[in-house]
């Protein structure tokens, strides 16, 4: 099979269209240019194929294809184009994203394009329907009336029409059907041929199902040959040279080989015609190639086949006249023999370190000198391991230890050998379970399906995809490309029956819910055997729930018992009179949410019900987690695309009850990165825009929010969003740009950051679940939402070049957090607080901490019960005189500036709490009578009540706006001796706005990202506390020992710098000088750093310069060294191999070379 790349000119045109789409944001042709990119038939991604008719003696055939634009279906046209001399265009029928609607892709614009294309001259129109069922087939009657008329008019005037997998009886009329198929189509199974006035029509059946196996592409190649024949005939371009292949029988006996087996007949050849004859085995191996000059216009030739093993083969003939294909034909050949081999695995999967074992059964004659070779092949046809045993028994056992360097998919093959000749063979796939943890991953929503799915998978693998998330079970080609799996196991919702009981059952009904959970878990056995990164409980799911089932009430009572310990405490909180928890009821029997309690102002009763609903969900998650551990002891379980900060979700509970959680991008990310263990998988979904800038902003935000992976929705998509791959299986233009900009992540930065510590400067922020609810009651909403007040602090801190760490009220209650590690703690809109947390914060300040709150700290208890006074009023040195709504007015504060001078900051329209007065505190500003910025020394520490909502303080990030908010925050942070270690200034010497600096520490080396999420490019200077060795990671450039670094801020795209006290040196490599095929070279890579780690990109080159893509591409190593396995297969090339390791920090490369020699046993 040949592999072909696009000619330069085609490429240039394609690149032009791409650049048009990228550059002309508002140009006239934008939408049409995007449609052209979607429908592009020019693909850089080439696949192995047979040149059945390239170049063709009758020249190019212009074909307009109508087909579904989903998945791998459009690639069918590219595949045909690779094999036939076609000049094609495509028109897609597509489903509109996030809907059940289908239509011609591009809607009106798409129909406009279709109309334009139909106005051109075409040799044939082809309608391709997918192989499977369940989706609408594509047929001519789907075209709008006008376009249908246009197309059929061309057909009646002489163009061809091919309908694959569908029909149109209005056009392909039975009365016009050929009673005998034309000679050129006689070997096309299931074809029917028609006349259509002056045109021709062919109907073909749906493509055959093609299961993935090594050599699957041979079946596809043969099917495509049939489609190509149909197109050429319909277009009136069938070859004049008539070729046939006639096997001697339906099955040929191996005992007759070598010998004449097939007769090759031709008519209509010129004297120059040569025939290339090829015998292909079903695994793709070519066993015979013959070139023959036919010499005369017609003739016959007996073709001999060599002695080959039993099995399926194809004999292909391509005849060329002056370099152009003049004819082609293929015939299947089956070789049978009496000695059969059968293979049975004890188990078709194994964990690393376990045994992969099985039995080989032989039948028929077993003579001396016969052996059985049991081999493990990867998808590349590499024989990664083998065992050879004498075929002296009817049943032979074998066992392999599964090595960490084994690929995820092994073809276990047993072959009976007679001397050096293969007699018969049998095979099975086996999975090596790999989960792809402890590395920076790229996760793809859904996986390709259909005949060409393996090629889509290859393209995804080449663009850095490591995992798929989808429903069902992972197909074997995923393992072939070493893709681990995230099964979408269920979707949790809270639908209820007419009695208010959760469907399919109450989450608290132990027996029923356990059976339900176990049923879901048991279905995941195939996933578990593949290798599961995490088990997903679904996306966009309900993350709280309760119902009116008695079991739910019982669980609720138990929950309340845990919360209150005694019934008197509950009665005090609720104002109720229960004598025991067993008596507790809902306020009204059908008020599942206690909405009545909320309306009545009984906030504790309402909050407790809400909190129970979150708890109930968390218990369900725990139940799933436990059940999955039964299936897979290493399992992790959680959910994705659900749970938010803004909805007052129990973020702490989610992290506790699950072992992974990937929310949609938002404020919750800050909490997860703060409280979850480092190995707790977390990320966001992205892919919901189409331009590189906005996509890159999402990508880099994940990196700078401490995610361990990037999750992309979805691998294929057109319309509102774009998939990772375009329909031709090339990455979309924006994806190419993403790949370019994020290359450093795949070159080691991603893995390195997982081993580094994000610097948070001693700044803590409390996440209080009860406060998220308190923000919704009484006059609280007048102060803004809980989330907005938090994000305002985030923005303010990040504008100062600082970062922060969340801790939660539950962590405080459970004694899991050491407050003394914080120099300053912020309490944004923390209105509700339990007595224990109050006391801990009081002690924190008393012992020297700095506590900063905005409005109304701790005016509710931990169950959102309103209190007469704030529980921390003494700490803040204030007293509460009223519980009032926000007062909006013009305020000002006087602060001492850096030079000791007093400066006045105006706060126009500031929202403040007029219900507070200073007692011991000193106010440095006011809005009317309302004090602002109250400071109080308490014990050894200080408490500061800002008494305003900083959401309303403008000007932190907008260029040219006053520095008010920044000055306020600087002053507050100054009280805690917190200052940014790195500063960023613009060309005017002023603080640069709207830029985040995130720092990670790895040993003595600091990794710094400078990130402007939106805005414009700007020249800046990054000032360091002292001179350091500076490396620009993205530019791969050493900037020297510097205390100030000049840089150009690139909006949407984070920049990364390394600051090192000493210049890092390259890693050292140690390898044995030589080994034999079948061995494993263990290369030790050792860091030059005394402390910390270095990331390196590993590349192994074979003697011919090609890259060994089976070797782990990145490694994080330290001074103790890390061993990288370089497995050498039994059939890998001999000669000098080169290992190189490129240091991420410096870009310096170290290399080691070793010789690969032949093992004694020879190959295969």
């Amino acid at each position, binding site marked *: 099979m040949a592999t072909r790349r696009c000619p*330069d*000119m085609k490429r*240039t*045109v394609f*690149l*032009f269209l791409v650049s*048009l789409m990228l550059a002309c*944001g*508002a*140009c*006239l*042709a*934008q*939408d*049409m240019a995007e449609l052209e990119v979607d429908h592009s038939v020019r693909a850089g991604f080439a696949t192995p194929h047979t040149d059945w008719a390239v170049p063709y003696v009758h020249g190019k055939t212009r074909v307009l294809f109508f087909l579904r634009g989903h998945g791998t279906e459009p690639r069918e046209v590219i595949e045909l184009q690779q094999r036939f001399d076609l000049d094609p265009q495509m028109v897609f029928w597509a489903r509109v994203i996030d809907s059940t609607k289908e239509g011609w892709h591009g*809607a*009106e*614009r798409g129909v*406009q394009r279709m109309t*334009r294309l139909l106005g051109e001259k075409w040799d044939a129109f082809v309608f391709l329907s997918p192989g499977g069922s369940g989706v609408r087939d594509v047929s001519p009657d789907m075209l*709008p*009336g*006008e376009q*249908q*008329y246009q197309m*059929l*008019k061309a057909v*009646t005037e002489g163009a061809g029409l091919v309908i694959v997998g569908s029909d149109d009886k*209005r*056009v392909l*009329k039975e009365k*016009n059907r050929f009673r005998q198929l034309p000679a050129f189509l006689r070997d096309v199974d299931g074809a029917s041929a028609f006349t*259509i*006035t002056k045109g021709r029509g062919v109907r073909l059946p749906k493509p055959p199902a093609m299961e993935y196996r090594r050599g699957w592409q041979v079946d596809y190649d043969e099917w495509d040959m049939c489609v190509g024949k149909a197109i050429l005939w319909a277009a009136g371009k069938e070859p004049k040279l008539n070729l046939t292949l006639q096997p001697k029988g339906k099955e040929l006996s191996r005992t007759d080989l070598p010998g004449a087996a097939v007769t090759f007949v031709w008519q209509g050849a010129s004297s120059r015609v040569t025939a290339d004859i090829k015998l292909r085995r079903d695994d793709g191996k070519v066993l015979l190639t013959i070139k023959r000059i036919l010499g005369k216009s017609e003739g016959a030739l007996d073709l001999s086949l060599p002695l080959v093993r039993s099995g399926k083969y194809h004999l292909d003939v391509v005849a060329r006249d002056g370099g152009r294909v003049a004819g082609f034909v293929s015939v299947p050949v089956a070789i049978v023999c009496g000695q059969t081999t059968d293979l049975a695995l004890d188990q078709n999967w194994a964990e690393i370190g376990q045994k992969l074992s099985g039995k080989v059964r032989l039948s028929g004659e077993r003579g001396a000198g016969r052996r059985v070779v049991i081999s493990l092949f990867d998808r590349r046809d590499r024989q990664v391991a083998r065992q050879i045993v004498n075929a002296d028994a009817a049943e032979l056992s074998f066992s392999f230890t599964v090595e960490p360097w084994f690929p995820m998919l092994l073809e276990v093959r047993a072959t009976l050998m007679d001397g050096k000749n293969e007699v018969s063979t049998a095979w099975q796939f086996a999975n090596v379970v790999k989960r792809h943890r402890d590395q920076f991953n790229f996760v793809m929503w859904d996986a390709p399906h259909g005949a060409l799915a393996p090629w889509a998978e290859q393209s995804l693998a080449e663009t850095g995809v490591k995992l798929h998330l989808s429903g069902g079970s992972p197909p074997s080609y995923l393992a072939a490309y070493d893709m681990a799996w995230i099964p979408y196991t269920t979707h949790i919702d809270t639908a209820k029956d007419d009695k208010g009981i959760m469907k399919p059952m109450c989450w608290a009904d132990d027996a029923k819910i356990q059976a339900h959970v176990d049923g879901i878990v048991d279905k995941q056995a195939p996933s578990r055997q593949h290798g599961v990164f995490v088990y997903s409980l679904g996306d966009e799911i309900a993350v709280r729930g309760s119902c009116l089932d008695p079991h739910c009430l019982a669980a609720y009572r138990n929950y309340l018992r845990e919360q209150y310990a005694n019934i008197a405490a509950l009665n005090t909180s609720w104002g109720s009179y229960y004598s025991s928890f067993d008596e507790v009821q809902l306020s009204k029997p059908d008020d599942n949410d206690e909405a009545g309690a909320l309306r009545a102002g009984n906030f504790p009763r309402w909050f407790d019900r809400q909190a129970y609903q979150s708890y109930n969900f968390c218990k369900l998650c725990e139940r799933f987690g436990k059940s999955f551990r039964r299936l897979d002891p290493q399992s992790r379980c959680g959910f994705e695309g659900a749970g938010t900060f803004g909805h007052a979700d129990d973020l702490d509970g989610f992290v506790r009850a699950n072992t992974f959680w990937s929310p949609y991008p938002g404020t919750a990310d800050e909490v997860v990165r703060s409280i979850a263990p480092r190995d707790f998988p977390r990320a966001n979904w992205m892919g919901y825009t189409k331009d590189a800038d906005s996509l890159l902003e999402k990508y880099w935000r994940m990196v700078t929010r401490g995610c361990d992976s990037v999750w992309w929705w979805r691998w294929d998509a057109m319309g509102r969003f774009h998939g990772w791959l375009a329909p031709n299986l090339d990455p979309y233009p924006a994806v190419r740009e993403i790949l370019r900009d994020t290359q450093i992540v795949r070159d080691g930065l991603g893995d390195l950051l997982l081993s580094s510590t994000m610097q948070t400067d001693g700044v803590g922020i409390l996440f209080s679940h009860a406060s998220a609810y308190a923000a919704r009651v009484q006059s609280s909403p007048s102060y803004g939402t809980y989330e*907005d007040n938090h*994000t*305002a602090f985030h923005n303010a801190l990040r504008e100062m070049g600082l970062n922060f760490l969340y801790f939660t009220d539950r962590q405080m209650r459970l004694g899991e957090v050491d407050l003394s590690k914080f120099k300053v703690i912020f309490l944004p809109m923390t209105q509700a607080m339990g007595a224990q947390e109050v006391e801990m914060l009081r002690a924190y300040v008393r012992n020297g901490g700095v506590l900063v709150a905005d409005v109304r700290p701790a005016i509710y208890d931990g169950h959102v019960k309103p209190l007469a006074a704030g529980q921390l009023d003494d700490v803040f040195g204030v007293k509460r005189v009223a519980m009032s709504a926000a007062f909006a007015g013009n305020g000002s504060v006087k602060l001492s500036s850096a030079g000791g001078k007093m400066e006045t900051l105006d706060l126009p*329209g500031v929202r403040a709490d007029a219900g507070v007065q200073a007692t011991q505190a000193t106010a440095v500003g006011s809005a009317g009578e309302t004090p602002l910025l109250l400071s109080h020394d308490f014990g050894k520490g200080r408490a500061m009540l800002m008494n305003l909502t900083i*959401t*309303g303080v*403008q000007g932190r990030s*907008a260029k040219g*706006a006053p520095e008010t908010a920044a000055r306020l925050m600087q002053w507050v942070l100054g009280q805690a001796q917190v200052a940014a270690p790195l500063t960023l200034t613009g060309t005017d010497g002023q603080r640069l706005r709207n830029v985040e600096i995130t720092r990670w520490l790895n040993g003595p080396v600091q990794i710094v990202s400078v990130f402007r*999420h*939106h*805005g414009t490019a700007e020249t800046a200077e990054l000032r360091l506390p002292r001179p350091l060795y500076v490396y620009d990671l993205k530019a791969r450039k050493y900037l020297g020992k510097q205390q100030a670094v000049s840089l150009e801020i690139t909006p949407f795209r984070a920049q990364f710098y390394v600051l090192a006290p000493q210049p890092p040196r390259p890693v050292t490599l140690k390898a044995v000088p030589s080994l034999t095929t079948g061995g494993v070279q263990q290369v030790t890579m050792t860091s030059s750093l005394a402390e910390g780690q270095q990331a390196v990109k590993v590349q192994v080159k074979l003697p011919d310069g090609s890259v060994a893509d089976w070797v782990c591409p990145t490694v994080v190593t330290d001074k103790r060294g890390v061993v990288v396995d370089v497995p050498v297969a039994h059939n890998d090339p001999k000669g000098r191999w080169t290992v190189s390791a490129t240091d991420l920090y410096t870009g310096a490369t170290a290399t080691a070379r070793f010789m690969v020699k032949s093992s004694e046993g020879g190959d295969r």
Partner: protein
Amino acid sequence: MRKFSLTLTVCFSLVLCSVSQAQVLVSDLGVETGIIGAGAPAHTIGLQRHQQTIVMDTGAQKYALRYVVALDPKNPQAAIPGEGYIGMPEPVGCNWYGGGFFDLQINGKSIGTTLVHSFTGRSSAGRGTTDFVFDTAQAVVRVRFVARAGGDCLFAQALLEPKVEIKSVRVALRCYPSAFVSNADRHVLTSSRDIKQGDRTQLDVAGEGWAFYYDRIYDTGYAGVNQTGAGPCAALWVPSQIGKVGLNVGNYAVETVLDLKPTLCDFRFVFFDHAGRKNEAAKTDFQKRAPALAQELAAFAFTDPGVAQWPLAQKQAEVRRALASVPVDKEAAARYEHWGRELADQLKQLHDGSAGAIMAEADATRTIAQWEGGLADLKLKALLNDI
């Protein structure tokens, strides 16, 4: 260098191709209904929402025009505007407010309280046209929006056929420049001054023939806590048609009230939505173009050539040819004959420009759409019969 030349050639060819085939894509998204819930104006809560949107895609910009009212099942002929009834949800809903930005009042009564007679969109001769036709007690009114292929603005016309004496005509425009925010810094620029947030003022009718609405904080791309700036917007009118213009620059909505001369029946406007463009760039561009646009607007031919010049005789011949291949389809023959008679009358009335021309055009538009749709099917049927 060779590749560069090739690219230029391809680029030029493609632009030529685009220009020669330039057309505005018009899509009718259909009627959407639903019960109006909390958050809507109180007088509409619980009633049925009736909403229809027509999108005109010029290639450079997408304009969506929306008819939105509440309907009371107890009084099905009455339209009850909520915040308005003619909205522009795209390019962005905040600029020319998607929930209602254009309110025409005749003799003090909003035409929006009369249920629209027809709301149609179509594409012809390089332009897209969207019509709102109202048959009110005071006048038959057509509010027409025209987008040109490749264009970045909307030309608008309010055309009246009075039934009673017209004493006053007023158009109230509403926008939320760049974002639905109140922590904003709204400004309106005219040819002679910059009017800041909080100001209420009258414009000099002769000298201030346009307004550029922008927000100094929420410039394009500015990300606030919950909103991101979309970009500014602008309007331009014909000073000679105006009695007075009042401007109220609120911290949320900006209201522009134009008292039109009641002796006239044809009032013209241009609307810009500069979504995606920075204040400064959009302002510079708009200021530069405004004088020429004002002249162009005054002379702009709002007549829809796709209707006015529809070749009835040619179309009837085409139908006859198709019908010859399907002689059994008597129903189609009768239908086309009926339409032909209707259209002949309607087009005559339209060309005469007499009273009733607005309604005649509206009816002709509907019939032509049915004719064209049916003709393709008829021709296809004939072709399939012949295979």
